């Protein structure tokens, strides 16, 4: 420092270098903090947070564990407990949503726990059951028949939650779309609005649904008419360009789950997206492999060339994926056989 007094500049070159080095060190420490607080490194801390008294802490911890994915397997027991026994509905749904990204079998356990509760005497229990099943998304496909039955529940909030859950599950598409269309004629304005909202923002719209929605543009309830307008203004989901863009989206990890889910709901119309979907049967994440199998299975005869790849999927490490693959093979073979039969003179 004694050299400063005689320095011809405000700081000596050595001081400047040291400051720059200090800055690099500071940024490195910030990077280290981020690295230690995210990904699999954060799992032990997040598991501890799941035991916190404050529900908001448990919710945030569950959301972060969901982001970590299969590497957060150590959190499964705590997340299962939170999804099924926590007193806060939001904590239940956050844990269930995380489970589907970590372990499909655990997610199915949550589904099995809540399906009987759809028939509970207590309306609040039925509402929570619908909300949790919805948060499991397409993984809760086997719960669809039970949710369809709840569509006629006496409690309007149960009916609303059931429609939201069905839209979130999305597959198989035909009975869900039929239930949502029925919801548009519900006696409760809240349920009608919820059904219209699902068409506007969640469920992909095919031509028959667009035709069914068109009269709603003149609905006396302005909010429903507006939602119908939003739905009809959406790009046609079964349009070639739209399928092409979904096919491109599956190649990007950030939009992959969404795009696969949309393709699975579009069924045979999504056949053009088969090629980008096929490699995803080998993805690291079970949820992606599951969605890929569901999307391919829904394509029907158009996915005939995927049968060989699907046969390899029969050996998948995840039982839920194996089940989806088996269903897809059976569906494609069945649809192909019937279309060949119909083509014969």
């Amino acid at each position: 420092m004694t050299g400063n007094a005689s320095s011809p500049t405000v700081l000596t070159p050595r001081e400047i270098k040291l400051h720059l080095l200090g800055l690099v060190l500071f940024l490195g420490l910030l990077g280290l903090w981020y690295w230690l607080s995210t990904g699999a490194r954060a799992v032990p801390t997040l598991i501890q947070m799941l035991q916190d008294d404050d529900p908001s802490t448990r919710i945030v911890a569950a959301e972060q564990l969901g982001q970590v994915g299969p590497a957060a397997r150590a959190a499964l027991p705590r997340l299962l407990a939170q999804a099924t026994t926590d007193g806060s509905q939001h904590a239940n749904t956050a844990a269930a949503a995380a489970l589907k990204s970590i372990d499909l079998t655990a997610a199915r356990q949550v589904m099995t726990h809540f399906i009987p509760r759809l028939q509970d005497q207590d309306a609040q229990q039925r509402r929570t059951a619908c909300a949790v099943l919805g948060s499991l998304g397409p993984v809760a496909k086997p719960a669809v028949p039970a949710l369809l039955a709840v569509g006629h529940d006496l409690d309007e909030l149960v009916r609303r939650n059931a429609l939201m859950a069905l839209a979130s599950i999305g597959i198989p598409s035909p009975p869900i779309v039929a239930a949502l269309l029925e919801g548009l004629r519900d006696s409760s304005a809240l349920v009608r609005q919820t059904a219209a909202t699902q068409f506007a923002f969640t469920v992909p719209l095919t031509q028959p649904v667009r035709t069914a929605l068109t009269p709603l543009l003149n609905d006396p309830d302005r909010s429903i008419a507006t939602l119908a307008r939003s739905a009809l203004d959406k790009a046609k989901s079964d349009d070639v360009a739209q399928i092409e863009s979904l096919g491109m989206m599956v190649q990007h990890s950030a939009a992959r789950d969404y795009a696969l889910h949309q393709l699975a709901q579009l069924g045979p119309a999504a056949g053009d997206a088969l090629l980008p979907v096929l490699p995803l049967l080998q993805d690291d994440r079970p949820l992606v492999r599951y969605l890929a199998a569901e999307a391919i299975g829904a394509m029907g005869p158009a996915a005939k060339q995927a049968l060989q790849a699907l046969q390899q999927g029969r050996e998948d490490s995840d039982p839920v994926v194996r089940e989806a693959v088996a269903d897809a093979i059976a569906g494609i073979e069945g649809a192909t056989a019937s279309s060949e039969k119909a083509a014969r003179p």
Partner: protein
Amino acid sequence: MIATTHEPSSRLRVLTRLGFWGSVIGGLLLPWGIMLAVEVIVHQVPFARAWRSFTLHLFAPGYNFFLIGLLTAVPFVVLAVLILLHLGVTPVQEPLIPRRRAVGLAGAGLGMLILAGWTHLEVLLHPDAQGALAYLYLPVILLVSMPIGYGLGRVIATILLPRPSS
């Protein structure tokens, strides 16, 4: 005579170091400080609860306060490097040059601070679905505002610190 030559250069050295680290740390802490202040002052949340909620959401998906802090800090880090390389290498024999540069850099820093503070306050006080986009655009806007602020500072410096007539 010796004391008068050394004192201003010593002050400038301190000012350069303070400006450098103040810009780096201030840029990072500014959004976090505003978040906490809005919780405590506007939403009347006790500080301990606001702090707990803040730390909880630092790395939480959909919130990621850490990333927001980092994004805001980027232009301030650039400013810090500029302070170091622009002011730090100024010859002390001509005191007018470092002074004018210091005022220019102060103008840039002040402008960036006001712009960043206002943006963060607006996002928090008037929440909107697209509000988070402001966090993405803010670093670019701050980088663009830096030379403008510097230019204004230099103009002010030219007015306030005229060159002594020979």
